[in-house]
């Protein structure tokens, strides 16, 4: 059986992922020219490489149409319901670090914890005639953190596909759930992270789609130990 590994198709993520596989003794070469979206691994005839966007990789892992993928944990946990039942996080690769965080305006002197936010959300509508609005592209992670972990139900999600950290100042939302790596964008926008507001510490991971056929396939085990030994 041919095992398909999907890697990010461009940018730092692509270079960092290729470097790890090379260290693991799996040198990746593009099929055709180096802009090609297919690749193979030198000396590993039963492995093929697909170059996809990071969010496509999370989706294809969920479908099981690829066997392994390198992508951010945040994208997998956001994209797939019951992620741990459908995929296995095999290795954390040490790059692509980003935290998914709850951030509120710095000026909210009275809000430093999720419990504070719960209080504010509970009577937000009585005071403002609408629900507390959260700008985010992370619907699932936000819902799990607010409703599942902190019992906060009374908020609305406002979808934001870019420049999320500007939403509170512009008035299109009250607070945000977004990724941050250094926190500098948040500070520049006068936002602060709640003390218990880190939803996920994400980084690039080697992720395996859970497929029954993998149990009896020696190539799966070889890939895993090669990558783990290279870290």
């Amino acid at each position, binding site marked *: 059986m041919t095992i398909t590994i999907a890697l990010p198709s461009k940018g730092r993520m692509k270079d960092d992922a290729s470097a790890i596989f090379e260290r693991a003794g799996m040198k990746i070469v593009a099929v055709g020219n180096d802009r090609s979206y297919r690749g193979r691994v030198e000396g590993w005839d039963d492995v093929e490489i697909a170059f996809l966007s990071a969010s496509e990789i999370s989706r294809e892992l969920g479908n099981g149409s690829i066997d392994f993928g390198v992508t951010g944990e945040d994208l997998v946990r956001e994209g797939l319901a019951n992620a741990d039942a459908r995929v296995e996080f095999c290795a954390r690769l040490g790059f692509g670090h980003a935290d998914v965080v709850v951030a509120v*305006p*710095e*000026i909210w002197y009275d809000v430093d914890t999720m419990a504070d936010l*719960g*209080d504010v959300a*509970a009577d937000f509508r009585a*005071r403002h005639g609408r629900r507390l609005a959260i700008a985010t592209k992370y619907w699932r992670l936000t819902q799990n953190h607010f409703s599942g972990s902190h019992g906060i139900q009374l908020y609305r*999600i406002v979808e934001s596909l870019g420049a999320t950290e500007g939403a509170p*100042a512009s008035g299109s939302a009250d607070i945000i759930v977004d990724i941050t790596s250094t926190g500098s964008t948040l500070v520049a926008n006068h936002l602060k992270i709640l003390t218990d507001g880190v939803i996920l510490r994400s980084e690039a991971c080697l992720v395996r789609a859970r497929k029954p056929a993998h149990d009896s396939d020696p190539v799966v085990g070889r890939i895993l130990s090669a990558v783990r030994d290279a870290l």
Partner: protein
Amino acid sequence: MPLINLPAFSADLLADFESLGTLRVDTPVIQPAEPFLAMAGEDLRRRIFMTESETGESLCLRPEFTIPVCLRHIETATGTPKRYAYLGEVFRQRREGGNEFYQAGIEDLGDTDIAASDARAVGNAMRVVANRLPGRSLTVTLGDQAVFEAVVGACGLPGGWQKRLIHAFGDQKHLQKLLAELADPKAAGVFGPEVERLAINGMLDDEARLVAHIGETMEATGYSTNASRSPQDIARRLKEKMELANTRLDPETLDLVREFLALDMPLAEAPAALFRFAEKTGLTLDGALSRFDARVAALAAVGADVSVIRYRAAFGRPLDYYTGLVFEVEVEGTPAVLAGGGRFDRLLTLLGAQEHIPAVGFSLWLDRIEAAIAASGGAA
């Protein structure tokens, strides 16, 4: 439109509703999603079927009837009191059972006699369930958030804590966690370094200066002072939070709240038991208790069999528009809730009604009633 998958007893049920003096209404299956999400919270999004209109409006398949019936009432502006009945299909993503199923029920809007309309809702629900399941004994569980609010209020807790506890009522796990926090002498709020600076500058004791300082900082950092929380909101809540952090519940008061939440008894015994509880603890609950007693008396007056009703003090729904009575009807021997209802006095103004409209109602799970009929060997 005769539908082939209607429960066999639908016609009899509608006849019951008519004999109870209600007006049958229908509402479109496709509804704007916004009111459901705004009322029930974002969690509902995963449990309803949503789509979008060509112009980008969020729509959903009707997940329940109460909100559409109330919206229809507000739009048609025909005045109160009104008693509406409905029967139709609702659509929800459920862990068990199908995703589309029938619900029926009654919404009683605008009756200002609270005890009588509460009792009528419970009595009607019991009657229509009993008519579908002759010979089977019902069990009813009844709760009342107003009594809990009175207990919390009488304990002398600061406003912030009262709000937290009342908001968690009905969610046992969350409520117990809050009570543990409230009793823990170590726990205290988290305050950022800015608050320390404000304290050193003496601003925390001078609300006017604090509000002005917050307003100036917002202007300077490009935040609008009226798009979200205002400087006054922030200053007020900061004061509330300092009270929260400084309040610890003494063990006696904590025991008392827990003792209250553990009350579970036949409804007929509840008025006396609540009176004894108030007397023993020295809490002043008079208003809430007299309204509770009036409801028990009204239930007997409408001919409901009070002996099958249990009062459970901790029973509530963690939705902020439920204000008082909640109840559930089961049939003995099965754990399924066949009917559920309660009082939702806040809902109509939240949905845009100009005047306050008291409201109480219930809905029936027709698929579960069908299953109960089949289980008891009757013809469904």
